[in-house]
């Protein structure tokens, strides 16, 4: 049935159909290289589907990191970035409109580790640890509120300074603190002269608590120096480059502190500042005067500061008001309380900073564009004003003192690792190295009976009980442990009854035992090779080694160690053998003597002890 029609319609018909054939053929040609089976790792809790092993071999991964982070539980992309779903090289590695996380840079990989290891850092993460330390030491959280980072408490309260600080010193201090004290952590705010004047006016507006009256006569600087040595001030204070870090450097105190304030401070520091760590020394007025003289005369920096002068006339209220405003705007109140109170913080929160993309952050007006978040933070720390734009307010970020490019980068790592949500708890569990804390229903039971009040578990738990839970899964037999939990019996006769009767039900006991056996294994015990032994020879060894000097068996022996009557039901065979092979190391409290016998003999002894229930029953029968 060929339609009689115009030729052009036939042409169009045939053309469109041939075009369709060609297009479908093209699609089929594009499909030619699809593998028959795509190997993938699906880690559902992380939302990870990784097909990296289409090309890469996880067994070839360098280092030992995969032993503790097996790919079947962690996948590849949580550490390496890239698009795990992809099956082509380009889509897997590069950035594309529909995938914004390309392969991670080396420092992004460090950040990936650190964003899970939020608490303590493993040794490979020294840079992150250094960054986190610096974050706390430099008081970053004073301006940038950050979950888990406390606002710094080391900066002094600045209310009522007019008796305490000289205007000349304060001016210099505000300009660059490190000119006066090179090791101080106060950042530099790049203030204009009028801003400094306003702040000085504001800070020196009020006096603190009333100072003691300075005695009429003056002290002797040399005797003062001796007194400072006698009192061991250098334990806490630095003097001439030596001494502790608890209090401020005394070498520069002379230019800062007036005599009356120093005197009052030495007599009773708590009266001036209730929260100070400075102890109250019981010193005579004479000695105090001498120390004051020493500090005032000798402890003046060389950098040409003017020594203390009397007040330069009354403070202008308007200027002080301007200073107060500036104090808030600059974020001084982030670190320094005023009369015990701290104002709102000035900077942005750094929570979830690690979730941001460096492309979304401001680009510096000078200097290179950062490749990753850590580099961006480093840039901001080293050159805060590099991001200022003409016509917009200047950055309030101060210049942090003595930050090397490396430290800035480490700070960047620490900041970039601030990320929510926290890693799922199971990520850190069931690792063969450390003991696993319980979760779910088991955790409820452990919580209810407060097992960890008495028992140790890893580094947690109390020390009342002699048996730590760590490794118990490799030591005790399940059925015995279940019975014991429900109705505890005394194992160590000489130590009396210890374990309370909690009324643990059978299902609860079962759950606890399952948890202990599946997570609390001792790798050393698990590694012991067991085998058939000669129970007869074991008995002979038992006698020969004088085991009855400590153990009771069938009513014979001393009650120094645990009763051995039911040891075959209580202890796991490889644990019994491990006691002979490894000695005190594997025994709780480490009290068992190391019995030096061959592996074969150890097997024989184990065989004898395992057969004991039968033997004991037989003995009773006689």
């Amino acid at each position, binding site marked *: 049935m060929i339609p009689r029609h115009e030729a052009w319609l036939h042409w169009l018909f045939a053309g469109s159909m041939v075009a369709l054939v060609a297009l479908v*053929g093209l699609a089929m040609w594009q*499909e030619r290289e699809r*593998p*028959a089976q795509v190997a993938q790792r*699906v880690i559902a809790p992380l939302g990870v589907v990784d097909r990296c092993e289409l090309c890469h071999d996880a067994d070839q991964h360098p280092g030992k990191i995969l032993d503790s982070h097996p790919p079947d*539980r962690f996948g590849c992309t949580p550490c390496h970035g890239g698009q795990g779903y992809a099956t082509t090289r380009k889509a897997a590695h590069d950035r594309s409109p529909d995938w914004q996380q390309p392969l991670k840079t080396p420092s992004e990989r460090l950040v990936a580790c650190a964003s899970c290891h939020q608490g303590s850092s493993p040794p490979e993460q020294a840079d992150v640890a250094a960054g986190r330390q610096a974050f706390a030491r430099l008081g970053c959280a004073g301006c940038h509120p950050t979950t888990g980072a406390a606002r710094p408490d080391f900066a002094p309260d600045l209310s009522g300074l007019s008796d305490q600080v000289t205007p000349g010193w304060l001016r210099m201090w505000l300009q660059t603190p490190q000119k006066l004290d090179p090791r101080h952590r106060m950042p530099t705010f790049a203030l204009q002269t009028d801003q400094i004047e306003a702040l000085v006016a504001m800070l020196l507006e009020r006096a603190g608590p009333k100072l003691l009256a300075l005695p009429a006569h003056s002290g002797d600087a040399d005797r003062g120096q001796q007194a400072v040595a006698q009192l061991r001030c250098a334990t806490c204070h630095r003097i001439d480059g030596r001494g502790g870090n608890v209090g401020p450097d005394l070498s520069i105190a002379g230019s800062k502190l007036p005599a009356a304030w120093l005197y009052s401070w030495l007599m009773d520091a708590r009266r001036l500042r209730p929260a100070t760590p400075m102890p109250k020394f019981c010193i005579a007025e004479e000695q105090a005067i001498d120390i004051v003289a020493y500090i005032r005369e000798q402890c003046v920096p060389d950098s040409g500061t003017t020594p203390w002068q009397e007040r330069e006339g009354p403070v202008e209220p308007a200027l002080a008001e301007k200073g107060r405003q500036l104090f808030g705007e600059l974020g001084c109140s982030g670190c320094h309380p005023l009369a015990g109170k701290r104002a709102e913080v000035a900077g942005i929160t750094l929570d979830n900073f690690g979730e941001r993309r460096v492309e979304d952050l401001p680009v510096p007006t000078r200097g290179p564009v950062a490749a990753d978040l850590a580099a961006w933070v480093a840039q901001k720390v080293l050159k805060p004003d590099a991001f200022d734009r003409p016509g917009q307010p200047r950055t309030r970020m101060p210049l942090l003192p003595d930050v090397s490019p490396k430290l800035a980068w480490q700070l960047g790592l620490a900041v970039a690792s601030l990320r929510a949500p926290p890693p799922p708890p199971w990520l850190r569990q069931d690792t*063969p190295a450390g003991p696993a804390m319980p979760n779910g229903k088991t955790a409820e039971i452990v919580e209810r009976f407060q097992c960890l009040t008495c028992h140790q578990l890893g580094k947690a738990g109390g020390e009342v009980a002699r048996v730590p839970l760590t490794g118990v899964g490799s030591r005790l037999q399940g059925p015995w442990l279940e019975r014991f939990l429900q109705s505890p019996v005394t194992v160590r006769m000489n130590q009396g009854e210890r374990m309370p009767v909690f009324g643990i039900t059978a299902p609860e006991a079962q759950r606890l035992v399952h948890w202990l056996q*599946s997570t609390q294994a001792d790798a050393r015990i698990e590694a012991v090779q067991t085998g058939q032994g000669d129970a007869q020879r074991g008995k002979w060894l038992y006698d020969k080694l004088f085991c009855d000097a400590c153990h009771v068996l069938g009513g014979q022996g001393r009650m120094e160690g645990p009763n051995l009557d039911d040891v075959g039901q209580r202890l796991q065979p490889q644990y019994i053998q491990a006691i002979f092979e490894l000695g005190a190391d594997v025994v709780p409290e480490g009290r068992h003597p190391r019995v030096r016998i061959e592996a074969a003999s150890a097997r024989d002894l184990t065989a004898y002890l395992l057969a004991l229930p039968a033997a004991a029953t037989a003995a009773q029968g006689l």
Partner: protein
Amino acid sequence: MTSPERRNFIWQIGTAAVAVLGVQSAWSTLRYARAPVSYGPTRRRPLGQASRFPRGSVVFVADAGVFVSRDSAGIRAMSATCTHLGCTVRAQADGGFVCPCHGSRYDKSGVVLSGPAPAPLPFLRVQRDRGGRLQADLDVPVPADQRTDVG
């Protein structure tokens, strides 16, 4: 003006293309229907640490669908999937197994005692993974006397 023969020829090309298109579509549909990925559980099923299986015990690991038994020579894992129609068998008090679907009975080493099951329950290879945990490989049957030494 095109001749009728020529028109005829063009029409034939068009209809032939339609036929080719039909074949292409059918073939592509069949290929589309089978994506080469699987989100189901892998055939290597984790069993956990060796300490989970006390010596002399038989433990049913539900997630893996195997019975794990341990004796002095080591560990072995027996499939819990009935060889008849794939139901999961249950352990009996006497150490044997029975299938709840059609009543096949197996003894404690998986040999068929009665019922429609055509073959004994297979034993499966048990290996350690990188983290030292045991895993059973559902695709690799091993002889009944082969055990994995776990020390």
